[in-house]
């Protein structure tokens, strides 16, 4: 008989992502992804000034603040057909890149590494052997016996105290954990070091954006940074130099630590290249524009249907007509009123909460579809779409990852293996390495442009009484983000945000087609169904974020996930 397992973290007033899986013979036979919280924040924007929208959208989510700010100003600029100065593009691009590097590092080390790394094996490791192993993998200078020993001592102290603290809820000793004590120690040491480098990436966002977590330098038509190479109150040479130094350190961490660790973990869990494929339609938008109009980009976009990499459809621009016309949202299984899929410009957010029912409605997330089909978004989609188009930077780092995994694991790796749970981690590391290179490029582009005497940062928007529509997109750390705005008489008439995790955490649609999380979990083997580590591995590989942050502290102690086996 089938068992039903529910994973439902009760960390907030309403919780966030909930996963239900049906288990038959120790494998997942069906899955449901749901968001347990009402998503109606967009309604707050109706009637407001479009120039202020980004301040509000920046508060959609406490983790992805800047991405929602950026998509919002881009949506208004698209509606007004407003170009922005080159400096503004470069400054925005640098903020987006720095935020993404921060986010990818945090995701791997803080949010998913411990799915693969067994903390309780660490005391058994030999720090000397660990240093030797590390040296064979990377030139990272902090791979020293001293650092490994210090990290191991911390874990030993925690284990000896009997108070596992931050490690209390891990699935330690689980049969699906298979790294040697030395590899566990290596990864854990980098988990601690990662905190320093993600902070440096965030400092770059702070210098350019004025503040973190909520940047202050955006404006519809550009940015509000004053550029004056000789004034300490403006963006001057000193600040640009500080950014260069910070980026250099972050880039080094990405190349010598994060990228290598992901490849090494992947090489040591090769069976996870066969698990977690799921929906193999992929969608990404072009990003990091290189001109004022947004006609050339450093990251390519497009879409792939049924894993057919040979027939990729490229998007020419970030608001490509094919993209604009192809998106709709279905609410057949979401807690909203509505009887047919609607385009975001016509989108309605009218709640109809009926309680969790896997056969009927079960999620607050709408089901976005592209040309009627569910799409997987995120670094994997972006890397596959770039690879398929022969994008040189994507090919460079995808090739390096394939080579590194192959040499560590003595296995033959093909690009098709990226379509898996581990492939999503691999693709994120490939993307991070690409962004690391682009960070330095865009900083130099900014410096060179300013060096020519161009200090322009803003083109003022002009509103008229006509109704106009615009889409602002951003290829965010978790994938394609789009904000859809309808402006009339200088006010917001309608606003919809279709966020990356909406694509990936989508419930079924009217035809019954699973969303990407759901499809990726099907057939996953579970060693111990009551400890569904394998489910978490695949869900975490998408980097879920439900974009509806409510942050109330619950002092009653109910801050643990409810893993229910029915």
């Amino acid at each position, binding site marked *: 008989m089938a068992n039903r397992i529910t*994973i439902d973290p009760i960390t907030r007033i309403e919780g966030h992502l909930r996963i239900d899986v049906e288990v038959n013979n120790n494998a997942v036979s069906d899955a449901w992804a749901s968001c347990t919280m009402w998503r109606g924040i967009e309604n707050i924007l109706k009637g407001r000034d479009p120039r202020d929208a980004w301040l509000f959208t920046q508060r959609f989510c406490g983790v992805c603040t800047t991405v929602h700010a950026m998509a919002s100003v881009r949506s208004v600029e698209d509606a007004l057909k407003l170009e922005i100065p080159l400096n503004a593009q470069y400054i925005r691009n640098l903020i987006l890149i720095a935020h993404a590097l921060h986010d990818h590092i945090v995701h791997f080390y803080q949010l998913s590494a411990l799915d693969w790394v067994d903390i309780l094996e660490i005391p058994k490791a030999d720090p000397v052997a660990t240093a030797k192993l590390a040296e064979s993998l990377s030139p990272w200078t902090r791979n020293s016996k001293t650092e490994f020993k210090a990290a191991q001592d911390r874990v030993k102290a925690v284990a000896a105290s009997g108070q596992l603290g931050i490690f209390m809820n891990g699935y330690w000793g689980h049969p699906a954990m298979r790294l040697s004590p030395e590899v566990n120690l290596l990864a854990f040491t980098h988990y601690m070091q990662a905190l320093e480098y993600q902070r440096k990436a965030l400092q770059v966002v702070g210098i350019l954006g004025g503040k973190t977590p909520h940047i202050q330098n955006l404006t519809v038509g550009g940015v509000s940074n004053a550029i004056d190479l000789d004034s300490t109150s403006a963006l001057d040479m000193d600040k640009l130099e500080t950014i260069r130094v910070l980026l250099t350190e972050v880039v080094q961490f990405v190349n010598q630590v994060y990228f290598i660790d992901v490849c090494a973990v992947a090489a040591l869990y090769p069976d996870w290249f066969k698990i977690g494929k799921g929906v193999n339609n992929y969608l990404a938008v072009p990003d990091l524009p290189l001109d004022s109009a947004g006609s050339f980009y450093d990251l390519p976009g497009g879409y792939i249907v049924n894993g057919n990499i040979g027939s990729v459809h490229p998007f020419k621009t970030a608001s490509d007509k094919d993209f604009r016309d192809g998106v709709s949202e279905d609410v057949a299984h979401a807690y909203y009123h509505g009887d047919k899929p609607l385009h975001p410009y016509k989108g309605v957010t009218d709640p109809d909460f009926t309680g969790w029912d896997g056969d009927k409605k079960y999620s607050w997330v709408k089901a976005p579809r592209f040309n009627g089909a569910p799409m997987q978004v995120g670094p994997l989609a972006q890397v596959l779409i770039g690879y398929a188009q022969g994008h040189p930077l994507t090919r460079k780092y995808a090739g390096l990852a394939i080579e590194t995994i192959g040499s560590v694991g003595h296995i033959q790796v093909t690009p098709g293996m990226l379509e898996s749970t581990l492939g999503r981690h691999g693709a994120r590391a490939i993307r991070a390495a690409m962004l690391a290179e682009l960070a330095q490029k865009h900083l130099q582009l900014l410096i060179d442009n300013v060096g020519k005497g161009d200090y322009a940062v803003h083109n003022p928007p002009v509103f008229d009484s006509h109704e106009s529509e615009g889409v602002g997109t951003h290829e965010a750390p978790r994938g394609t983000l789009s904000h859809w705005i309808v402006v009339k008489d200088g006010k917001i008439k309608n606003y919809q945000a279709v966020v990356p995790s909406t694509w990936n955490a989508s419930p079924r649609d009217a035809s019954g087609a699973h969303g990407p999380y759901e499809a990726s979990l099907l057939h996953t083997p579970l060693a111990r169904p009551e400890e569904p580590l394998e489910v978490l591995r695949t869900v975490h590989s998408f980097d879920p974020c*439900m974009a509806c942050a409510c942050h*109330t502290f619950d002092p009653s102690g109910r801050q643990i996930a409810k893993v229910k086996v029915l």
Partner: protein
Amino acid sequence: MRKVLIGGIGNVLLGDDGVGPYVARLLAARYEFAAGVEVADLGTPALDLIDHFTTNDAVILIDSVNTEADPGTVLLYRKPDIMRHSPAVRMDPHSPALVDALLSAELFGVAPADVLLVGIKGESYEPVCDLSKPVKASMEQAIAEVLGELDRLGVEYRRRQNPAEPGIWWATAEQMETPLAT
């Protein structure tokens, strides 16, 4: 110089969840603080809280809380009260919030000894930019608790002669017209 963070936590678009940022902005508008004190609207940070714990000597946070108490009740939690909870299973980047951040900072051996959470029991977390009446009425007490903690820590502050505009940009016009005790 002692580094002290006074941080308002919460989502200003979700009703009473916005009380933390609101209180932080009122404090910054009305008072001047000794060097080393930072007053910040932190929004809804998750793991970024670790950085705040590792880079300050004392941390005072203001956040909405979920308890059995009546809406608007102000409750204080010290470090051990927060640390006795289990960390969450990390489903998404929001999950590792206050408890996890503090436990992580403690693991790295750098969490400050002085941590105070000034909690305010919320009434409604619907997507609106206003606070409920009981929560709004509780803000003066929350401010007094923050100042009391500064007194206890021996950190100086003084009332501004001309209070600044608190910059509650998200609030509706109607709410802004409601006079706040200053």
